[in-house]
């Protein structure tokens, strides 16, 4: 019957005929998902071509002719991790001024006009470990686009007037840093998790003022070299033509020694605390955090499964189910482990709830966390968390540029060669006791930092029940 319906429905598009057949057919439709048989999914990891040019530039290429566009990422393997405390804010000032400050023969205005004329999208950003340019343009403009990248990498101008403009913008952003409770809570949490460390610092007017144009130039001169440059290209390009253009623009750039950056050590905060930032709002933002792990930790796959069950799996997570779905206490309830490339990244769990239900929400979060430490997760939950991550793996490869830039990033950070190939296998091998071990290592209630932003009139007194020291944080109003 089902086969009959399947093969004939394609032909029966007329209204009456279709309705007649379908009324007969409806009875045979499966009602439950487990009645379905799925064809085998054929999926192979996409190939990315990698090559190293004579002067050390590492290239990652993948053609995709669907749209007449090209996307490029140019990555310098050095970043903001060595920024001194008195110059925090350097990273954004560098990225923004690099992008906006002109390059080669072009003044800032001329470069902006040229890129807009090409309808190109260009952005620049500095992270802790790398400094990147992203460029998207029409394939017919590839040569012009690579030339712009060449100018920016070899001949950036960092025009003084643009640095000053970016500095003014950053200072205004500082004035506005207490406008939004989500922004406040993240800033306070990172400061608590990474005390006296660049990962925890945020800029002040003084540190922004301390950054000079010479600092930008020094960074570029110290770290920009072909043997410290990684380029990923995807889209509609001709390989030979691209290599020629790259050679024309970068071939004469000589190799040279680039200083190694050493990330400063992270000191784990020893005991937990509650920071309370008072803001006259009808809802309190709650974030709970601790230091997490790096990509080299043997339990990283167990942590992925743990996090899914805790608060990373959306409606399938315990936090979402208990806080939102069962009790209606919040709209969002989430957790994540940001797996650090070189230093332990943060573990964060959070929610937002009306002021009157702050303590119940925090208590629920802590109960869920304690339970994950104290008891093995049940088989059903474990399977769901694993299946979800295994079966959705294929979505990591939907976007061609994500594929090439991911390969580049994995190589840059020295991930194992078979990292992607074995990813699903590693997830599949996680057991309930692995998850519990990970929970015991990374979820430690007495060590966690809690940040609350809201109006404590309705919950302030109850907070002492949590048995953690409470620090009230003054949110300055800019004047």
């Amino acid at each position, binding site marked *: 019957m089902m086969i009959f*319906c399947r093969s004939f429905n*394609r032909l*029966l*598009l007329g209204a009456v005929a279709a309705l007649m057949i*379908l009324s007969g*057919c409806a009875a045979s*439709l499966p*009602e439950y*998902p487990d009645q*379905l048989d*799925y*064809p*085998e*999914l054929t*999926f192979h990891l996409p190939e990315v071509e990698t090559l190293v040019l004579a002067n050390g530039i590492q290239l990652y290429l993948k053609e995709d002719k*669907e*749209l*007449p*566009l090209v996307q490029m990422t140019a990555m310098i393997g050095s970043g903001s991790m060595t920024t001194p405390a008195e110059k925090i804010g350097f990273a954004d000032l560098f990225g923004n001024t690099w992008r906006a400050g002109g390059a080669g023969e072009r003044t800032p205005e001329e470069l*902006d*006009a040229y*890129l*807009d004329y090409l*309808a190109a*999208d260009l952005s620049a950003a500095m992270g802790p470990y790398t400094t990147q340019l992203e460029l*998207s343009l029409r394939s017919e403009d590839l040569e012009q686009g690579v030339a712009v990248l060449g100018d920016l990498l070899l001949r950036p101008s960092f025009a003084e007037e643009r640095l000053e*403009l970016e500095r*003014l913008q950053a200072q*205004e952003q500082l*004035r*506005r840093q207490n*406008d*939004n409770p989500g922004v406040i809570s993240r800033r306070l949490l990172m400061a608590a998790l990474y005390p006296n460390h660049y990962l925890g610092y945020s800029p002040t007017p003084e540190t922004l003022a301390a950054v000079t144009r010479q600092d930008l130039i020094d960074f570029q001169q110290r770290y920009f070299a072909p043997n410290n440059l990684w380029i990923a290209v995807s889209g509609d390009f001709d390989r030979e033509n691209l290599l020629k253009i790259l050679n024309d623009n970068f071939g004469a750039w000589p190799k040279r020694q680039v200083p190694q950056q050493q990330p400063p050590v992270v000191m784990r905060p020893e005991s937990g605390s509650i920071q309370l930032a008072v803001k*006259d*709002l*009808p*809802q309190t*933002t709650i974030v709970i955090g601790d230091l997490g792990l790096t990509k080299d930790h043997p339990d990283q796959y167990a942590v992925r499964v743990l996090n899914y069950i805790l608060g990373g*799996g*959306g*409606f*399938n997570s315990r936090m*979402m*189910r208990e806080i939102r*779905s*069962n009790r*209606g206490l919040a*709209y*969002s309830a989430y957790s994540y482990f940001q797996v650090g490339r070189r230093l332990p990244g943060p573990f964060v769990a959070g929610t*937002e709830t*009306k002021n009157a239900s702050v303590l119940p929400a925090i208590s629920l979060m802590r109960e869920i966390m304690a339970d994950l430490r104290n008891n093995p997760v049940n088989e059903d939950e474990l399977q*769901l968390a694993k*299946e979800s991550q295994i*079966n959705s*793996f*294929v979505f990591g490869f*939907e*976007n*061609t540029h994500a594929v090439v830039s991911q390969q580049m990033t994995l190589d840059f950070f020295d991930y194992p060669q078979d990292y992607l190939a074995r990813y699903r296998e590693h997830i599949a091998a996680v057991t309930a006791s692995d998850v519990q071990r990970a929970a015991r290592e990374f979820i430690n209630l007495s060590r966690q930092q809690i940040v609350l932003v809201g109006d404590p009139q309705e919950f302030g007194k109850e907070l002492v029940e949590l048995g953690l020291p409470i620090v009230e944080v003054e949110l300055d109003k*800019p004047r």
Partner: protein
Amino acid sequence: MKQQNVLIIMLLVAILACFGGPAFASSTLEEKVFEHQFANGLQLLVVERHDTPVVSAYITIGVGSVHETSEMRGVAHLLEHMLFKGTKTLGTTDYQKEKSILEEIEKVGSKLDALRLQDDADPSRVAALEQGLATLQAEHKQYVVKDVFSRIYSENGGVGYNAFTSKDLTSYLISLPSNKLELWALIESDRMKNPVLREFYTERDVIREERRRSYDTNPPRRHYETLMANAFTVHPYRNPIIGWHSDIANLSPQKTREFLQKYYAPVNTVIALVGDVKAADAVALVERYFADIEPGTPVPVVAAAEPEQNGEKRITEIFDAEPRLAIAWHKPTMPHQDDYVFDLIDQILGSGRTSRLYRSLVEEQQLATSVSVYGAPGSRYPNLFVIEAVPRHPHTTDELETAIYAELDKLKNELVDETELNKVRNRLVTDQLRQLDSNSGLARLLTSYQSLADDWRYLATYTREIEKLSAEEIKAVANKYLTSANRTVVVLKREAAL
């Protein structure tokens, strides 16, 4: 399910505004889109892309908050949440037994809502009903299989399982490994045929929290909400998609069911499947699962018409945040000729570093840190042209406003030159291509246009219309609409700064 109502519609409007350009990309798209209409009115659009074995599915119902009346503001969005709760077969351990408890819950909940509206309500009676409701809800739990759609999609590798409600329409989306497409058909057809609005009162509380999170504590979105609520006097575009607190608190299962039964029907529905799927297979699959649903009746046209605005409206919104400025002018919507012109004006004034407002306000005068220009809040009915700007201390919103009007005067008095027009057209063409890149993004565009313009091919004709527009028309439109009498100005700032 996400709170993105406003954001999404702003994006959508931005997408509509960006979707232009000459025939190249449009013709490619025209060749790629396969369309089919089923006997019950359901429309299907398919784009085959076989590079990766994944498929994105969008179901868009042509009903949104604009179709609500004052007794049920917020219901389109609440219904969207409720449709995540399962069906008569999925999400329950025994629907027959569950049904009678659900009816009890509804009775007690309705009584409680009615009582809460009375000023002189006896607190002990309220407390007793609250207790009664809690007991019933606890009893109901035994029949609930929690968040079942989410679970099934996830274990099968689904990503981006979500829904959003806008002023004009409601969409349900998921991306799956392509071998699991039949699972989508099973779940979504069941959701259309047999939804059960379980856990209603808890979900209403969730939406109150969503409102607090997304509007009551968020300065830019509160600002936007105030702008919309004041720019319109009559048209329902004035109402927030999520509803005001008192709206949400008084929505009932009955109102929600009625909205569902009235509007969620094949004649109002467009499906797009983009990815590793064959068009013929898609037609057969959708036929098999959806074709037995009754056609239903079309969503009626909103009769309320916004009267002409006869003078500037000026509003202050007090909020504990640094100042922000937003200005809105009434304008027609697509397919009105002037709407195309506004898309060019958006670009000229606000798109990119060389746009006029960025150059003038941010770079040259350094009065602002950002400026954005967009159309809002929907596209089905006449809407607004909006300019938002963030002043840079010590400059004020007043200075910013004066500087913006000076730029608008240039647009009204001088013709845009050909170089600038070309730049803007070029940007529209290229951004159109960028929009086509992701399966999910393309599925969204196709269903949106099909629903809003009755034909996704609007994209192609749009391109040709844009090409025809002249500098004279830009000048004329600027003079016609960007007047002081037609504008609403909202400043958000702290009380102390008054």
